[in-house]
């Protein structure tokens, strides 16, 4: 979202004949960028203000004030035991993701390639995609009890339908003309898969992964809240049962920040590397 907005006030190439106008244009561009940054900061100020106001309204026992939460967060970081819980949660999220990709991608591929499998899977996959996450969380606990497998299963169940639907959509969007071209030049099915089908679906898979990731770590934490033995969700439940709300919020804030960083660093990087061939920038992806 951000980069798109920054691109707006870009001044194009200018003629040397008009240095004044060029300088003026650059000045207004800089002014506009400044104003944008200021308004962006104002957005954060607004978040802070709303938080303060709400906790004043309900009292700081029901909604701790920002600096109290900050204090709890610092405590959590200082004791250092957050590392174990974070890595447990992240590992479970990625494990669930892996399972979802292993199951969902082939299903999506079959749905995109063959009419029979599309009819076979379509209803089930769309229904699975509309079931609320809490149902998956509790179902996973029923199947596996209190163990690390529960959150993994929950993440997999939530993500697999998205992966399947996106891959199917991508496969169906494959340019048929490229396939006929490959056939005319006698390419083997394996070559066609590798050179035509896979590159076409990569953007769709990334869209699915980014969309899923935002949902997946929440489901992972949710499952841990219901019955986990480690991880961020487990800590959140423990603190909630002790009525230490500021610790609950501190864990949440830390986890959100951590996951946003992972998303930006890992996923966005990989995506821009793999999609270098695209001539134009992708639209705002959220």
């Amino acid at each position, binding site marked *: 979202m951000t980069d798109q907005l920054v691109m707006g006030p870009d001044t194009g190439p200018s003629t040397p004949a008009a240095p004044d106008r060029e300088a003026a244009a650059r000045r207004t561009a800089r002014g506009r960028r400044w104003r944008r940054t200021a308004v962006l900061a104002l957005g954060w100020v607004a978040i802070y203000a709303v938080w303060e106001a709400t906790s004043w309204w309900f009292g700081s026992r029901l909604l701790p004030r920002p600096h109290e939460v900050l204090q709890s967060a610092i405590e959590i970081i200082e004791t250092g035991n957050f590392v174990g819980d974070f890595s447990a949660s992240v590992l479970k999220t990625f494990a669930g993701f892996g399972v979802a990709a292993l199951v969902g991608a082939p299903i999506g591929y079959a749905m995109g390639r063959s009419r029979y499998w599309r009819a076979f899977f379509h209803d089930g996959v769309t229904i699975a995609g509309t079931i609320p996450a809490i149902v998956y969380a509790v179902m996973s606990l029923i199947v596996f009890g209190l163990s690390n497998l529960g959150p993994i299963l929950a993440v997999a169940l939530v993500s697999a339908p998205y992966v399947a639907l996106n891959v199917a959509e991508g496969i169906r969007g494959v340019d048929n*003309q*490229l396939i*006929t*071209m*490959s*056939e*005319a*030049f*006698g*390419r083997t099915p394996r*070559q066609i898969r590798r*050179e*035509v089908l896979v*590159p076409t679906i990569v953007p769709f898979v990334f869209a699915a992964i980014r969309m899923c990731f935002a949902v997946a770590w929440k489901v992972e934490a949710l499952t841990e809240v219901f019955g986990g033995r480690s991880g961020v969700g487990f800590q959140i439940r423990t603190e909630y049962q002790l009525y230490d709300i500021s610790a609950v919020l501190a864990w949440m804030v830390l986890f959100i920040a951590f996951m946003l960083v992972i998303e930006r660093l890992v996923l966005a990087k990989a995506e821009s590397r793999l999609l270098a*061939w*695209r*001539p134009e920038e992708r639209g705002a992806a959220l």
Partner: protein
Amino acid sequence: MAVLTVTNLSKTFNLGTARESRILDDISFEVSGQTFVSIVGPSGCGKSTLLNIISGVEEHTSGDITLTSDAGGPARMGYVFQDPRLLPWRSVMKNMMYVQDDQSRDTVARAERYLDMVGLKKNADFYPGQLSGGMQQRVGIARAFAVEPDLLLMDEPFSHLDAITARGLREQLQDIWAQSKKTVVFVTHDVVEAVELSDRIIVLQPGGLIYEDITIDLPRPRRQSDKAVATLQADVLARLETLKAMAAAEPVAEPVA
């Protein structure tokens, strides 16, 4: 060289609810040896469809197609489509290599040579999205040449190019053809082009029948500016005039009996 035999070929497209349209109707012809065949006919009469069927990317409804290599071994095919059809996620050079069976250094050198022939050596590392439409089309032409096929199918390959570039490529095509003994099936709108290049012109008429099969017997190399080409072209055009009237009258889609 290859021998292509088309016998009683028909093609019907299903248009959904109880309608179908017959594009090719019982067509037979044979092309063999080092022959350059042009297929001309009004727009929409089924020229691209015929090439697609010959190349195997489209199924035919009935009839028979056989393709034989007379040198022994499988007949290799090259196809210049009406549009470029390049993989957008691969560079120009990778697109050239994609259709090659072996990836040896010789093959790379050959691909580079043909890329140079169409004037795009500098652009080998470009993605197709960074080329103009005509440049992409030229990559498509180089790609088909680079497989050095026994049977070369070309669907209006020069129609998106400027006159000078097109003339250069036509001359190159004649040279390559003269040296390498290919069988070429060439679709075009342009009668002058057809007369300049071909040994034989097959004229399709709307409704998918062969209207006429003209043999061109002029000495090579030919140029469009040659007097003989100009006279013959006028002659062929005059014969095609009658087709125009038919194009207007012919119904395309008919209800299924």
